[in-house]
């Protein structure tokens, strides 16, 4: 019955949208979070307290509120532009997607800034001094000394952020974006089978988190090869 009505395909498509929002949000969050971490690490007079405040505020405000801010905050404007060009629906969907990615990315960035700062702090100062002593170009200092080590230290934290991020994508469903939760919600409403649809959504989410957990464990083992345990 589920497959006849095309719900199977809809759920699959929803899962892909969820993965896309999660991955793009994560990329945005990592890039922004790393930049923020560098600012924290470098202790820039005015910027560093600002970054600290950003991280503290975002981490104590519900993600749902941030989604609402980005969505309602600019939907007026976007609907206006869309109506002007006559593509209201397409605009609305693309916009919900972008607002979702932005919200998820901004939340992940706040957590990532802490994780990366911790990882940067655990790189031995002597190694950076040694790189300077060898007159290593700044770019190579980052790509050869700081980068690989930071990645190794940060990986468990990054894994946690990813798990939280993929689950946070469910919040974007309130904007009407057809991701997994939204598809399940619509399906539940039109077939009068809420239990079935939400359990399916839960199973898909569980599969995603389990699979990504395995991938992160693999990556951790790879990055840690050549490092003595203990």
């Amino acid at each position, binding site marked *: 019955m589920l497959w006849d009505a095309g719900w199977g395909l809809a759920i699959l498509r929803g899962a892909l949208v969820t993965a896309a929002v999660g991955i793009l949000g994560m990329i945005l969050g990592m890039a922004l979070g790393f930049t923020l971490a560098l600012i924290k690490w470098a202790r820039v007079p005015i910027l560093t307290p600002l970054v600290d405040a950003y991280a503290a505020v975002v981490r104590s405000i519900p993600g749902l509120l941030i989604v609402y801010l980005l969505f309602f*905050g600019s939907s007026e404007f976007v609907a206006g532009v869309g109506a002007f060009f006559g593509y209201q629906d397409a605009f609305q969907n693309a916009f919900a997607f972008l607002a979702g990615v932005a919200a998820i990315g901004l939340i992940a960035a706040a957590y990532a800034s802490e994780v990366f700062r911790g990882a940067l702090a655990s790189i031995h100062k002597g190694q950076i001094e040694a790189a300077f002593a060898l007159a290593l170009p700044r770019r190579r200092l980052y790509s050869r000394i700081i980068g690989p080590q930071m990645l190794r230290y940060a990986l468990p934290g990054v894994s946690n952020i990813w798990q939280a991020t993929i689950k946070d994508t*469910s919040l974007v469903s309130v904007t009407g974006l057809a991701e997994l939760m939204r598809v399940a919600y619509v399906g*539940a409403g039109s077939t009068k089978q809420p239990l079935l649809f939400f359990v399916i959504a*839960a199973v898909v989410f569980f599969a995603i988190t389990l699979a990504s957990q395995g991938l992160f464990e693999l990556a951790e083992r790879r990055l840690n090869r050549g490092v003595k345990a203990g």
Partner: protein
Amino acid sequence: MDLELVQTAVPLLLKGLSATLIITACGIFIGFPLALGLALARMSSSRIASATARAYSMVFRGTPLLVQIFIIYYGLGQLRVLRDHDLLWWFFGDGLRCAMLAMVLNTAAYTSEILRGGLMSISHGELEAARACGMSPWVRFRRIRFPLAIRQALPAYGNEITSIVKDSSLASTITVLEITGYAKRLMSETFAVIEVFTITGILYLAINFVVLMGMKLIEGRLSGHRAGARS
């Protein structure tokens, strides 16, 4: 910021505060004992108990809270058995009660991991000493394992309480008007999105600040023996 808006927004948001606090309190006071039970089951020698606790924690931590809330509120509401039973329907027919249940079940999974970490950090020697003194398992738990574990786990549990406060906002998706629910309504009615967001954000910051201070206080009391050494 326009004053009239503040005058309408603040009382409304404060009205939502009670629902947020009820859900949070439930998560703490019912979720914590449940989590302790789960952590002990996970560490028990019974293979069935430990596997059950492990599966529970994996499932609830591996799926979004929003799905859990929807399964409980919309999904279970579909079942005939629940609808026909008066008491059960009194419980599952109400958004706030469903949100409270989902919150308790969800936080119990996360908290059980935190408590397990605390329980595992206790050194073997201390337990052996307690056993050598002839303490029964219950006395050992009450006097040695629990106090030591809770002190270790407290900072992480503080973060978990912050999460509970934040996650209580998801109740707004099942018709419960808590802080975020009212904030959404204000945003879509007044279009003063940034202003409403700011006021709501300050409210959440205030709650979490109180939580943080409370945790600091408890932490200070639990590690009173260290007070002398620190100063």
